[in-house]
Structure formats: C-alpha cells, structure tokens
C-alpha cells in the first residue's frame, strides 16, 4: 500500500546532484557532508580572511608609496608568518567564491528559491556583488602591476556609467595623476566598509531562517583549513612588480575567481560586462516566480486544540509562527498564529504540537496546527488502513524530498510520503504500534543536515531521543523503530535497510512467538 501527499518531488537535476553529493556522504557521513554546509563554509572562509586580514593590516601601510613595500616585507622577510597569512587571506577568499557558487547552484537546482524562500534567494543576490567588489578592492591594496591593471579596468567600468563628468580613468593615466586620496578611499572601503556591508548582508540573508547553521562542523573547518594552509605553504602568493603607470603590464597572473570580469571586459567591452552582470542578476532574481505557480496552502491553527504551549513556534524552521495574545477567551495566555508569507507548508509544526495525538477519540481527528492539504486526520486514516492485518507489517513514513518510499510499498509495507518527516507527531509512532498494531515503523527522511525544510530530520531525531518536546514515549520499543536518513536516489540502500529491519523484527517475533501481539482494538484514550 502506498500513499503520498502529492507534493513536488525532486526533478532530474536535483537527483543527479544528490547522486554526486552521495559520494561525499560516503566519505564524510551525511552530517559532515560539505555540501550540506555550503553557506556555513562560506562564512567560515570569510572568517579566516578576516582574521588573516587583521594580521596583514598590522604591517600594512595605507599609502601609494608604502603599500607595495609593506606587502613585500610580509611576503618575503616574514614569509613564515605574514607570507602564510597573506596566502591564506587570498586562498580563503577564493574558497569562499567556490562554496558561494556551489551554494547558489545547489539552492537553484533544488528549487529552494520558490515560495516564501524567495527572500533568502533575493537577499543572496547582492551578496554576490558585495563579495566580488570586496575581492576586487583587495587587489588594489597591493599596488603592484596587477593592482594597477585592476584599478585602470575598474575605472573604465565605472566611467562607462554616466556618473562622473570628469572620468575616473584620468586618475590612472600617469604616475603623477594617481590620486593617493582615491587609493586611501579604496583601502578604507576594503578594510572597513565592505566587511560591515558583508556582515549586514549575511545577517539580512538569514533574517527569515530560524537557527541558521552559521558554523560548519569542526571536521569541515579543520579539513578545509588544513587544505588551504598546505596550499599556502607549498604555493605562497607573491606580488607583481610595483605599479608603474609609465608601463603597461604585459603578463599578469590574475585571480580568476575575483578578476575574471576584467579579461572579459578586455576582449568584449565595459558595456558587455555591465549587461551580463545586471542581466544575469535580474534573470536569477525573477526565477522564484518563474513559472508562476499556485502556492501550497499554509499551516492553519485550530484554536480549540491549541493550548498556547509555543512548541510549534519554537520548531518552525522559518519563524512563521508567532505566539500572540489569546483571542477565543479560553483560559490560556497565548495562541499560535501563522504568518502566511513565511510558511513553506512543511508541516513540521504538526509534529511539534502536543495535541497531535491519533489516540484521541475524535472524528475527524483535529490538532492545534496542521496543513489543510495533509491534516492529522488523514495521517491517522493512512496509518489505520492496515488495521487488522498490521501485525506482520511495517509502516514506512517518508518525505517528498528524501529517498522515494513509494517503490517499497508491498503487501506488508505500507508507505506514506509526507511533506516532511518532521511532520510526524511522536504519538503517531506509538499509535501505529500500539493501536494499529504494526510490527515496526520506519522513518526515512533526508540525510543529516540536509532536510529540505532544514530542521525536520533534526527535530524528529531529538523527539525520538526524548531531548525535544513532544518526546516519543518511553514505552515505545525502540527496537521496533528504525530511522534512516538518506538522499533521494538512494532507494536501494533504503530497501536493504528496511529488509534487514524486517528480518530482525521477524526473528524477535519468533523469539517471543507465544506472546500475543498488541490487541488491535485497544485504542487508548488521551483526552
């Protein structure tokens, strides 16, 4: 038997991506898979750039005359500290571009810019510009031939826009023309302005995300740091000869991560660079609404079942639930209120609500908060479908984004695909075993730290481990419960784990074969 909520499933691109990422899960384990922490890794690389940058700044001279020499001193005389810091500063910034790029593509491929997530997507766009400008401004600081080329090309880009009447490029036509004030301004922008703008930009980017993962796991910090440090020692960064505007650099070893636009500008034109930059941004920015799609219904509060405990507000991954003053006169202080603009229809709140108990004798079953397209009553009816013949069966609860469970449906496996496994109230696991009489329950959701709805997998595990409310009752035999965390496309692995689980269930049943299974009609009364 199988059932699904009819939600959107991952497309071919998302499946291919998951297959590739699966390789890394094998090496790192799901929770430490770098692809599950791209945003956090990006922040970490910026953090490395910040710390190394502070060190560089101690020795740096913010003037046209002193800049190159002070960097040269760090690189050569102080190669063991300043030189490594300098190399790390560059390499960490470059690594940030890599993780940022993959982060963007990954969210795009997984369609995580649609619906209320548009906010994270749109606020990501300016971050790309900020990061690129940040990097470009950093290359000015060395005031070597590369800096000269970057300065001249930047000025040409700026001059293409109708901003200044006296072209900025006139600052770079000769050594006499170079304005040390402009240089100081750029240094100030790189050292003070952009760091602040970047932090504000990231803060804004995460504004609608509850409990954002800002720090990657230690293992990833240490590993990536080791890689970049090794690179800094083996291939340290060097400057070009000092800037000299009486000369034009014939060959430059450029940093393609940040400076690729300048060769593009050289072989095309300033107009093309601006057109691609703004056109690309606009194109990406409208993606959340292309093609226009009807929004899924959002979670609804059912006041008669809401006690105002606040669990749902605590658990909602997108902060879509506010606890507000009671409006129905009942003797509770607060009630839950859903902000429809923020709700992604994941149903995790249903799993959080203490009223979500299928044991309650009520037709139809109701709870404090639920999705109209997948109410708790439907969940109970689905579970109960096997009533009477469940004692040899397994209930397999999956989700629309993790491994597809439908294919595993058989006579003795009843599958149900939820918007998110986090939607499963712990009481429903208890109910499935005690009331319906399933031999076992399998929860199969997205891999560690990769829940499509961010926190469903984490909350589910914490509820099972009884470190989060509502906790799975102690009486639920944990050996009859299996949780599997995999990616879409890993259905074979899911199948073999379910198969092994079924075998152990059968064996333990044989062991205490004479005992009667739970009476299927023993509906427990809670309220």
């Amino acid at each position, binding site marked *: 038997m199988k059932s699904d909520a009819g939600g959107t499933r991952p497309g071919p691109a998302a499946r291919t991506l998951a297959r590739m990422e699966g390789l890394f899960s094998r*090496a790192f384990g799901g929770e430490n898979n770098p692809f599950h922490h791209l945003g956090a890794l990006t922040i970490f690389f910026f953090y490395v750039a910040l710390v190394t940058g502070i060190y560089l700044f101690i020795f740096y001279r913010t003037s046209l005359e002193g800049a190159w020499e002070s960097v040269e001193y760090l690189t050569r005389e102080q190669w063991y500290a300043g030189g490594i810091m300098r190399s790390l500063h560059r390499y960490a910034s470059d690594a940030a571009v890599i993780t940022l790029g993959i982060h963007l593509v990954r969210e795009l491929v997984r369609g995580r810019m649609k619906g209320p997530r548009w906010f994270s997507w749109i606020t990501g766009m300016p971050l790309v510009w900020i990061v690129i400008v940040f990097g470009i401004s950093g290359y000015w600081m060395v005031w070597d031939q590369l800096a000269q080329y970057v300065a001249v090309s930047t000025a040409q880009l700026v001059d293409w826009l109708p901003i200044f009447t006296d072209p900025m490029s006139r600052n770079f036509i000769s050594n006499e023309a170079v304005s040390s004030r402009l240089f100081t301004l750029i240094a100030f922008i790189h050292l003070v302005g952009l760091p602040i703008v970047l932090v504000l930009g990231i803060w804004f980017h995460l504004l609608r995300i509850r409990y954002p993962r800002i720090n990657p796991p230690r293992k990833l910090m240490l590993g*990536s740091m080791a890689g*970049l440090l090794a*690179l800094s020692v083996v291939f340290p960064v060097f400057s070009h000869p000092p800037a000299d505007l*009486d000369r034009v650099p014939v060959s*430059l070893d*450029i940093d393609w*991560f940040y400076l690729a636009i300048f060769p593009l500008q050289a072989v095309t034109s300033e107009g093309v660079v601006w057109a691609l930059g703004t056109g690309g941004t606009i194109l990406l920015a409208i993606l959340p609404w292309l093609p226009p799609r009807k929004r899924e219904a959002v979670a609804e509060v059912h006041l008669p079942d809401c006690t105002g405990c606040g669990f749902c507000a605590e658990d909602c991954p997108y902060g879509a639930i506010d606890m507000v003053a009671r409006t129905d006169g009942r003797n509770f202080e607060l009630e839950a209120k859903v902000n429809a603009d923020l709700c992604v229809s994941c149903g995790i709140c249903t799993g959080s609500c203490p009223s979500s108990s299928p044991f309650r004798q009520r037709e139809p079953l109701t709870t404090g908060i639920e999705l109209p397209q997948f109410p708790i009553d439907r969940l109970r009816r689905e579970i109960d479908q096997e009533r009477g013949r469940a004692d040899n069966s397994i209930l397999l609860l999956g989700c629309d984004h993790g491994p597809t469970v439908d294919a595993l449906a058989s006579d003795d496996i009843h599958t149900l695909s939820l918007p998110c496994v986090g939607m499963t109230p712990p009481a429903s696991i208890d109910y499935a075993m005690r009331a319906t009489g399933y031999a076992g329950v399998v929860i199969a959701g997205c891999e560690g730290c990769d829940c499509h709805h961010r926190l469903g997998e984490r909350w589910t595990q914490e509820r099972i481990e009884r470190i989060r409310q509502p906790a799975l009752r102690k009486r639920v035999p944990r050996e009859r419960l299996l949780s599997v965390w995999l990616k879409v496309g890993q259905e074979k692995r899911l199948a073999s784990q379910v198969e092994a689980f079924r075998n152990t269930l059968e064996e333990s049943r044989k062991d205490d074969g004479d005992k009667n299974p739970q009476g299927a009609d023993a509906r427990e009364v809670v309220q």
Partner: protein
Amino acid sequence: MSRPIRIIGQTATWLGLAALVAALAQGPAFSPVADGHGELRLSMAHLAERLVPCRPLTEEERLALPPTRRVTEICERGRSPTVIELRLDGELLVRETVTAAGWHNDGRAYLVTTFAVPAGEHRLRMSLRDTPRDEGFDMEKEFTLRLESGDAALLEVGDGDVRLKAPDRH
C-alpha cells in the same frame, strides 16, 4: 565504508579544493597587451569654443540689469562638441565626437581611451575640432612616438595645450 577509505575520501576532498583554488588563484596568466606592444593613452579634458560667441551688451541692456550685476558681456552657456581624431602612421586610431559635459553642455569634453601600439617608432597625428563648424580642424599636431614593449605613452589634450609624454629611456 571502511575508515581508511573514508579518510582517503576526505583528504581527497580537501586536496581537491586546494587544487581548484590553486588552479585559478594565481593564473593562468592574462596579457592586457600583446607581447611586443606598448600602450598609447589618450586623455582629453578640453574646453571647446562657445556655440554662440559672447557679445557686448548695449547700454540699454546694461541699464536694465540691477546695478550690482552690470556686466559688459552676455554669453550663452553651450559649448561646441569636440571632434578628435588620432592617426598612427596614417592609419585612423580613433575619431570621436565628444559633447561638452554638464546639463547645459558648458563643461569640458572628456575622453580617455587606450590603444595597443606595436613597439617601435611611429608618427602620431592628432587633429581636433572644437568650434561650431562641420568640417576641417582647428588644431593639428604631429608627434614622433617611440615605444618599447610594455611602455605606456600618454597624449594629454588640455584646454590649449597638447602634450605627448613617452617614457624616457636615455
């Protein structure tokens, strides 16, 4: 998966990241100008002639003005576009018509461009028109331009003067 294989996988990941960074962080090299070439920069900031010349005020017009503002001339603000043409060894490098800056076109005409020039000795001819006429030039100058590979020369066109500055290697 066995522990050694996992460790190999993780090490390979971080080496891969380092390799990717290394591959693009300091090169491949890019040449802003081809080998054996130098650069000629043109920087113009030139105040062109007025479109309508100033004319003296008549005594009547003068008296009509407030006593503190009795100027002797009246000038309209607009200035002629500047046409600049550069020829290197007779070949046209650029010919551009630059309008005077400002809302009322009363500012200078600005132009900054660069050209890659093969190393060696060249004849550079600059012609400039900055009066409201349709043909001919108001100023023409010729220079000898000597450039070595990687040198940058600057042709600076100011309000009245035109200078060619090339690196002096003697």
